[in-house]
């Protein structure tokens, strides 16, 4: 059995072999693999007795269930109005600069993917970014760069 099949078996055992477990199972895969590969979706379909198209249908609906390869760390910068007014554009510029990628892209070493997100729920403390599950409110260009450099060092 491949690694991914083992992971899926464990997740299905934990959450139960029903359709209602599809979201937690897909979320569990993304947590480990950072995206849902075709292989993973087919294996989930088999395990939960669904059609692969059904699994892809659900996966492709959700922003956080990526079906294209992503970096180990996913950076999401809030782009909604309050953060916009607080200068999210400058944050994006600074990170594009230091990571040498554009929004939507992944670095060559597969460490970082840079994305924007709709309202992250921190409008009183913008601009804000999410790195994986962790929140960084009230950032500025310098802080944002330092945070990312810190994560890059830690994951060497």
């Amino acid at each position: 059995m491949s690694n991914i099949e083992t992971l899926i078996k464990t997740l299905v055992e934990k959450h139960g072999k029903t359709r209602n477990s599809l979201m937690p199972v897909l979320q569990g895969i993304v947590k480990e693999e950072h995206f849902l590969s075709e292989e993973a979706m087919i294996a989930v379909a088999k395990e939960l007795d669904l059609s692969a198209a059904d699994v892809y249908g659900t996966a492709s609906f959700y922003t956080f269930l990526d079906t294209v390869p992503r970096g180990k760390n996913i950076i999401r910068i809030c782009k909604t109005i309050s953060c916009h007014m607080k200068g999210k554009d400058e944050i994006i510029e600074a990170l594009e600069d230091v990571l040498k990628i554009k929004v939507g892209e992944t670095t060559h070493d597969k460490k970082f993917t840079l994305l924007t997100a709709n309202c992250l729920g921190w409008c009183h403390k913008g601009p804000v970014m999410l790195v994986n599950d962790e929140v960084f409110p009230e950032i500025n260009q310098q802080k944002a760069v330092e945070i990312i450099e810190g994560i890059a060092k830690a994951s060497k």
Partner: protein
Amino acid sequence: MENKILKKVDYIFQESSINEIIDVVSKTLTKSPDDIILDIIDSGLKGRGGAGFPTGLKWKFTKNEDNPVKYVICNADEGEPGTFKDREILDTVAIKVLGGMTICGYSIGAKEGYIYLRGEYNFLLPKLNKIVDDFNKQLKSKGIDFNIFLKSGSGAYICGEESALFESMEGKRGEPRNKPPYPAVSGYNSKPTVINNVETLVYVTMICKMGVERFKELGTKDSRGSKVFSVSGDTPTPGIYELELGMPLADFIEDFGDGDTKAVQVGGASGHCVPRKHLKETIIGFEGIPTGGSMMIFNSTRSMYNVLHDYLEFFNEESCGQCTPCRVGCQQLLKGIESVKKGDRKPQYLDELKKLANTMKVAAKCGLGQSVANPFNSIVDNFREEIIY
């Protein structure tokens, strides 16, 4: 109507220990389900998720359904731009939410409760998992047959719409269902379900703790109780505030504005934009503009074109795409204001776009598409020049 000056109160975020809340729950559960529901109806509590449906009635309809399996769901998908109070509630006083869910479960005859937490708030999970575990154990030791579980979303605003939330919990695309049937009849797993906002459930615990009469002293006749507001934008004091309902917006801006307020967006992207000249006569509450609590303040340096553009981009991306009026409507409204701005279209085109927004109000399948006309019309009507030039 009684006019009040702005009243800051402090109930929601008052700390409570798990034992205190378990006590409130145990004491409440000595009453019959019908009596509790009557209390909640009598309190005048209305849902804090935006729509403002009377909470007690919702419970009563669900209780009246004859089904051995029912559910309580706490809607913690908070995604409306400008809203962040549910996060703070779950971060600081989650235990009160669990209390409200248990009281609801007993009242309607449900044995399971779920919290659907938006994926963006996953950082709360370790903490919430522990609180929920402890709470479930306490309930068990008291012989109360109710269990609470946590579910995560995955970054889709539309899953805050109740029927889309059920679909998501059932492992499907978060596409809203046709209504009726309403959740009281057919919700999660097609069983009778009560779905309430995080804040609503805290008020349930509060009402059971302080008593109906004390709760009714807060707010106005049409808007009982207090409300948690999420204040952001051009204000020296952004943050989360608990205020009594029924206040004129002018009083609010007196306190929170920066002296140069041009407009306030009440109720998030899907809410209404109120220009300065209407602040005095606008009442915040169910008798005026109801709100999920989002207050975004804009001063004279802001372009209302950019504000509207941001909102339309948001709806465009978050529309589930299931029905044509909304999928195509959102797209065309966005393209439309862009082309008027560029001069490719005459200013009168804005009136065509308003007709489209009004069509969406009646033809779209769910609240997302239906409410795009709120920001669109209120911004275009009040700031037409800014959209054109």
